[in-house]
């Protein structure tokens, strides 16, 4: 039987390297950024229901990748905090920290990482990218003065949100409890999704400018 012979054929493999110590060292560095997605989904739903005016006032609702956009009549008051995109990191560190291929704007740019979101900032723009499934609970609340314009971003489904500032709530599970990571007002943004990755571009003044910026993103 050839199957039997193949099974008993000992093939030479290079010696297996000891991976444990190196793997654990890398895990340790990032363990504080540990996410529990199942809990997160549940908690995001719970948090949404916990805001009565939100529950009553949802007029419109759609999802693009990892972003849920809701139209509400009354925006919950949000502190106008300075946008924080996490820790400054090198591009290589960000690339190693995520399991998808990043795109980059024309250099120079600075890179920030707030697991699992990678953000690049340049000029007055900021591009955030993350795997949709990793963060199913980014929530945008769009007030009555905002316009949500569904648009194609070079073949991908997206939306241009403009007209008034809108609130972005990013939530992060902290082991057992959920806390708001950030609650701030953002200007116009273009969001789109391609192959499971969600992109969010902030800082463009017009949809044309945003689309032009999106066109110039490259794989490094």
């Amino acid at each position, binding site marked *: 039987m*050839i*199957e039997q*012979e193949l*099974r008993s*054929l000992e093939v030479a493999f290079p010696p297996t390297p000891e991976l444990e110590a190196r793997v654990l060292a*890398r895990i340790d560095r990032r*363990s504080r950024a540990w996410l529990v997605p199942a809990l997160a989904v549940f908690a995001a739903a719970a948090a949404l229901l916990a805001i009565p005016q939100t529950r009553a006032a949802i007029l419109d609702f759609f999802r693009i990748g990892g972003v849920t956009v809701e139209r509400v009549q009354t925006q919950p008051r949000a502190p106008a905090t300075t946008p924080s995109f996490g820790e400054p990191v090198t591009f290589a560190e960000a690339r190693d920290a995520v399991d998808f291929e990043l795109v980059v704007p024309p250099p120079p740019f600075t890179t920030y990482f707030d697991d699992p979101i990678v953000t690049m900032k340049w000029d007055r723009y900021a591009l955030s990218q993350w795997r949709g499934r990793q963060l199913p609970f980014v929530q945008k609340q769009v007030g009555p003065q905002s316009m949500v314009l569904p648009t194609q971003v070079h073949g991908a489904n997206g939306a241009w949100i403009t007209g008034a500032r809108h609130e972005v709530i990013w939530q992060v599970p902290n082991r057992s409890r959920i806390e708001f990571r950030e609650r701030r007002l953002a200007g116009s943004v273009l969001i789109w999704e391609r192959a499971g990755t969600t992109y969010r571009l902030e800082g463009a003044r017009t949809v044309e400018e945003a689309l032009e910026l999106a066109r110039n993103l490259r794989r490094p």
Partner: protein
Amino acid sequence: MVDRPPEESDLIDRAKRGDTAAYGALVRTHQAIAFRTAYLIAGNAADAEEAAQDAFVKAHRALGRFRRGAPFRPWLLAIVANEARNRTRSATRRANLALRAADEARPGDAVPSPEAALLSDERRAELIDAVNTLREEERLVIACRFFLGLSEDETAQALDVKLGTVKSRQARALERLRGDVTP
């Protein structure tokens, strides 16, 4: 047959709760099969080592998505194989991996294993040559199934193909091998 130690699901639960020692035990258990799977796909030891290491880090991060009670190995190997494939794609340095038989008389290995003793040196060389002349996709299936001992399901996950594709490639490859080696 997946050889899963009884406490594996326990280790996974502990690792999910942040117990790195438990994850370390999982790495030790699976590092050889992970490295070898990566080696078959990437074609060289350096890329295989990197791929396996990255895969363990990413698997740890994705543990929250791991379904409780599911076998860990096929899930891990799918991540490993993906890492290995990414390296071959990005580096365009895909070496056509030529497998070779382990040396019969290895230093410190006075008695050949009973399995190796079943085959003569010439027969081993003949078989390996025949496997090496298979088409890449068929050779990978043969290597995963018979040299790594993966199940058909695990092979399908590792090679990112359908189960039916594994079966048909395996059947074709075996057919070819039967024709290539002396009966």
